[in-house]
């Protein structure tokens, strides 16, 4: 079973991703900010990371940089409410960029593609 790390500061949204992605047959681990995400990656080495950008403590782009410097091969999907980070070249190192929507189809499709 593939393990996905979902990084998201919004508690209820995190719960939603957990439920929905578990249902797709993935093992879901979660983190509430960038620092926690780095810790979780070191401990459990997930197969894919879904990363929010605006979060407390450490934002998703910074966390992504740190994670990628340690584990180059983990695919990362940026999942954000902002479309403007698309132009931030740091976000180009992510494998996909999904704009948050209540319809999780796009996110699920991208995960399937990358795993």
């Amino acid at each position, binding site marked *: 079973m593939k393990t996905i790390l979902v990084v998201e500061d919004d508690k209820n949204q995190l719960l*939603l991703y957990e439920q929905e992605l578990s249902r797709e047959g993935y093992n879901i681990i979660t983190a509430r900010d960038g620092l926690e995400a780095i810790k979780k990656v070191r401990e459990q080495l997930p197969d894919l990371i879904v990363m929010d950008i605006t979060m407390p403590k450490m934002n998703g782009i910074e966390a992504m940089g740190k994670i990628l410097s340690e584990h180059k091969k983990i695919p990362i999907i940026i999942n954000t*409410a*902002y*479309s*403007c980070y698309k132009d931030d070249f740091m976000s180009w190192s992510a494998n996909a960029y999904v704009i*948050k*929507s*209540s319809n*999780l189809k796009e996110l699920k499709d991208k995960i399937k593609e990358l795993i």
Partner: protein
Amino acid sequence: MITNVLKDNINNVINNLTDALEAGLALLDKELNILWANKRLSCMLSLPYDPVGRKCREVYKCECQDIQHCSVYQALTTGEKVSCEIKLVTDKGERKYIKNITTPIRDEKDNITHLLKLSLDITRQEEKVHRLSLLRKLAELMQGTLQIDRLLHLILTCVTAGSALGFNRARLFLVEKKQNIVYGKMAVGPSSLEEANKIWNEIADKYEGLEDLVKASAETYRYDTPLHMITRLMAFSLTDEKEIIVSCVNSKKTILEKDAFSNPNIDKKFVNKLGANEFVCVPLVAKNEVIGVICADNVYNGKPITAEQVELLSIFANRAALAIANAEVYRKLGEKNRQLRETRERLIRSERLAVIGNMSAYIAHEIRNPLVTIGGYARILSREYADHKKVKQNTEIIIEEVNRLEKILANIMDFSKPIETVRILTQINELLENTCSLMEPYFKSGHVHLMKKFNPTIPKIVVDPMQMKQVFVNLIKNAVESMPQGGKLLLETMTEDEYVKIDITDTGEGMTPEVMQNIFVPFFTTKVDGTGVGLAVSQKIIDDHNGFVKIKSIVKEGSTFSIFLPIKNAPAELSGGER
């Protein structure tokens, strides 16, 4: 016998003497019949008959209605010398001012037996006075006109008006310092003798004073007369000393040319274009600089140009030059003012857009997150209760509403997101064609009849095609939505001045002036499900392209949106586009 000879001689001498006088003389009896008159009187009044034996008022064409005002009668009744000035038109059609002095002649018993009427021709003096007052009036008229084209036209009208300077035709040339040329700007006057006669008759019938004429001619001035067109095509380099206009500019002196065709020093091309053998060129000097030249002639009635006319024209030209300089300053001021106002408006608009952009990005983000959660859970519910009809139906409603909100947010996010521009050389017609085929199904569903009038000669211009397409889609959508019952949509392209112009015309509801004022304000909308950003975004894009939008709209008839995009954009952008 001897006495008779002597008498005859004396008569002759008296006749010769009185004829030599610069004055008309007439002897009247008490019934005001003319008993004797000298020849000079007949000349002065251009009489085709012998005045002797006729009534005084008949010969002098007196206009005073009752006899109380008659100066001759006054002299007769008061016994005093009486003088008066009269204005008359002779049988030959000349206007004359005559000063009459009537002196009673008495016999030994001091009874008045006869009257001696002395007449002086004061036409020339009167004309001088009249001209001075005319110049004053013209100067006043000119000072009151600050709009340059109107002023120039006024000046030429004054030069040609019979009631003013009375030339047949007048052309105005202006000096363009930057290009070192003097060019034809405007011309007033008939193009042929027939037209001249027609116009003069018309004018004489219609207009009383100069003000009247000037007012009327400003409204009826036509720019398509052959004379005007020929003049507009004239331009001379200021280094070309052989040209008479140029030498007039350089010498700052009035040039009166009496016989241009046989003058070897004059360029024949110019004379031929002018079509006049005799003409006068007067420099327009303001602040010691020649700003232009007035060239006037009498080609139709062939009247020689008198020194007096030239002098008058020179004085007039000085005044005119000052007025032109004033108007130019005023125009520059207005231009600067307009630029300032436009910059200010642009600044305010972009400031407002920036604030709204930041705010909407923030709000959109804050709302989108909970929306994702709400919608996401609603989907879970809907899936898990797929066989529970009521729960399914209700959760579907939640999903639908969330979708709608998300769509609106997407719109706002587009608006707030900084736009990356790609400027390339684009044929607008193709872009429009492309947009139309994209929207084909949309037209069909809206029962809209699409008409295209694309001018194939419009040049390619540098734009961001994606952004411009966005503008077209927004405006065309608006147009279609204003015709819920269907209608005609006309797309037109053309060049206008320095711009490519795109007209989008619908036969829809039209807009009230209040709506028109607000349509570019972000989040202003009259539609039930609109977000009010479409037009704001469109305008921002057009602004970014240094273009502008004009709107015409009539309620219940429809609207036209005209997009103006500059043909010449910054050269850097152009080279970028051609790469």
